[in-house]
């Protein structure tokens, strides 16, 4: 008896009316994977450097994210405290621990409680950094890693994201290129999250409601100035 893998691949090949691809043809396909090319990138995804930030903000606000601009990472703690106060939330956040987050002077707000590690159900708010922002649709791209657990992006009710403004790219393709530059071709972090606005549902009578299972609020802190890579 042949195993399922063999018989399924055989069924696929029979349907295609051929045997396994010869090495030369497979090599051509392999090259398509090893050297990925962009397909059509819409004009919206190719803004000039001057337009890039404005378009990102416009698109992000269109999907009910809120955006605040900060002059540098040193302004982040104060912005977080103010955000939580206005939202009437406790002054405590679960924070990521990557280079950008470590460069934030959290001690400047002694009344703000911070904790690292994976999120737990009782965490009301989290602060993480984004690997990129995509102007095309106001999308944040976040990577998982030992210092950026994925649960921070989903369990808390409010998600605050630090996005260095130099990390805003035009299109998804630009972001993939940056990621390949960082990790090498064909390699991915365990999780890449594209996040476009706060969680929502329209499953009850097509009424749009924010905050289905993920965060009800998404605050983007767009930071100018020096940021660690």
């Amino acid at each position, binding site marked *: 008896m042949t195993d*399922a893998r063999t*018989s*399924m*691949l055989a*069924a*696929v*090949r029979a*349907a*295609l*009316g051929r045997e396994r*691809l010869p090495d030369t043809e*497979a090599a051509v*396909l392999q090259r*398509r*994977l090893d050297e*990925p*090319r*962009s*397909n*059509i990138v*819409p004009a*919206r995804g190719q803004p000039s450097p001057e337009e890039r930030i404005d378009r990102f903000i416009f*698109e992000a606000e269109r*999907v009910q994210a809120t955006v605040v601009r900060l002059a540098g990472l040193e302004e982040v703690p104060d912005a977080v405290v103010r955000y939580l106060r206005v939202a009437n939330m406790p002054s405590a956040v679960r924070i990521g621990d990557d280079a950008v987050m470590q460069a934030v002077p959290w001690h400047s707000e002694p009344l703000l409680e911070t904790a690292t590690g*994976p*999120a737990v159900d009782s965490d009301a708010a989290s602060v993480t950094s984004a690997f990129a922002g995509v102007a*095309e*649709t106001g999308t944040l791209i976040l990577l*998982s890693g*030992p210092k950026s*657990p*994925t*649960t921070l*992006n*989903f*369990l808390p009710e409010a998600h605050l994201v630090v996005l260095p403004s130099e990390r805003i790219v035009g299109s*998804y393709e630009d972001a*993939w290129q940056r990621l390949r530059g960082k990790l090498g071709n*064909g*390699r*991915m*972090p*365990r*999780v890449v999250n*594209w*996040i*476009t606005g*706060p*969680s*929502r*549902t*329209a*499953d*009850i*009578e*097509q009424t749009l*409601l924010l905050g*289905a*299972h*993920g965060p009800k609020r998404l605050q983007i802190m767009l930071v100018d100035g020096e940021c660690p890579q």
Partner: protein
Amino acid sequence: MQSTARVFPDNAHRAMGDVNLQASLARFSQGFPVKRRLAIDRLPEFDSLRDAARDIKNHTLENLDFYLERFEEKVTENGGRVHWCADAESARQTVLSICRESGAHTVTKGKSMIGEEIGINEFLEEHSVAPIETDLGEYIIQLRHEPPSHIIAPAIHLSKEQVADSFREHHAEYPADRPLEEPRAMLDEARTVLRRKFLQAEVGITGANMLVAETGSIVLVTNEGNGDLTQTLPQVQIVIASLEKVVPTLEDASTILRLLARSATGQDLSVYTTFTTGPRRPEDLDGPPAFHVLLLDNGRSRMLGNEFREMLRCIRCGACINHCPIYGAIGGHAYGWVYSGPMGAVLIPNLIGVDEAGHLPNASTLCGRCEEVCPMRIPLPRMLRKLRDQQFEKKLSAKPVRWGLAGWAFVARRPALYQMVMQIGVAALAALGRKRGRFRWLPMASGWTGARDLPAPQGFTFQEMWSARGGRRQ
């Protein structure tokens, strides 16, 4: 699930008498199509992206074996495991054995049409594993023991009152007299109830919108974030995907993602698009340590080899459903199986047999709106015609229809005879109907006269009058 496609006319009849359903459908017809239009108006490249997406999928299907093997290689390299499942039964058994190995009692689920297709929920329940749907719409219909009525909006057929009733019945921990009139209150309650389930489940099962061969990633798109909690919190992650979900590269996936949400809900992008590659890594602080991908055939390789290959480009956006006037009249349950609308009318006969689901390809005016909106440019009306061809060849269509057609064709192939028969026929009909100009009822024509009058013919044929007037023939 057991199909009721065979009794489609009865299903449709019931649906048209269902007041709640009809109210939902009226709301629905004004929703998605309008939003889709607005989204596309903001993207002038939409049609060229459709061409590109079609080409990507065609290329992938032509080399499906290659891309599946590369995908598997990458999943394995990243520490995950791929299970090849030829049919629904082997997929169900594979899921169950993974659940048993991990001692699972509770399984959270992201919305998955493949899950519906293989009936995984019923199966797990029979084997003492509790599956919990976490997409709000899926959760609601699971409480009601109903199948989804729409691939992307499974509870679209229900009113908020019906949802509230289900919550009162099933959420016994809440006071019976709590206010539950507004969707917001229902959502907040469901969020709390399901949050506990998310934290409790040992296994999370999701579908996949795409599989990326370049990296071994699975792509999952949701708006609620339930998919992400399902695939992040448990110790074991299971992804069930049919073979045709694979695409070559991240760029290819990105091109298709530009079409998916715009076509589905009119969003530029769904809120969460997640690329997951393998299990938790050594230094990671969260994520499931075990990662399984089930690759399911269940009829796909057959379609790959026949005239329905193009249907395998389908990305399950639901645009054809949202624009279908038949779906708009009867909703999704009438189709009698997991899928509905034009894509369902093509897919269901292919998956469960044209003899079982023969009504579905016939219950269409072939108006072509589905093909017009399909982001993957699937020629749905042509596929419906091909299914009708199959039925005719297999002599599955009703005998009176076949005989009537044969008699008509016999006459129509003989112009002189045809013209004589028609002359006599219309003269007789016109004599009967001249006074009112229309018929409210005619023997053997109740199909027509049930809903509308039949305008009376003028009483002579064009052909006889043209001859009478000495019009030119050649």
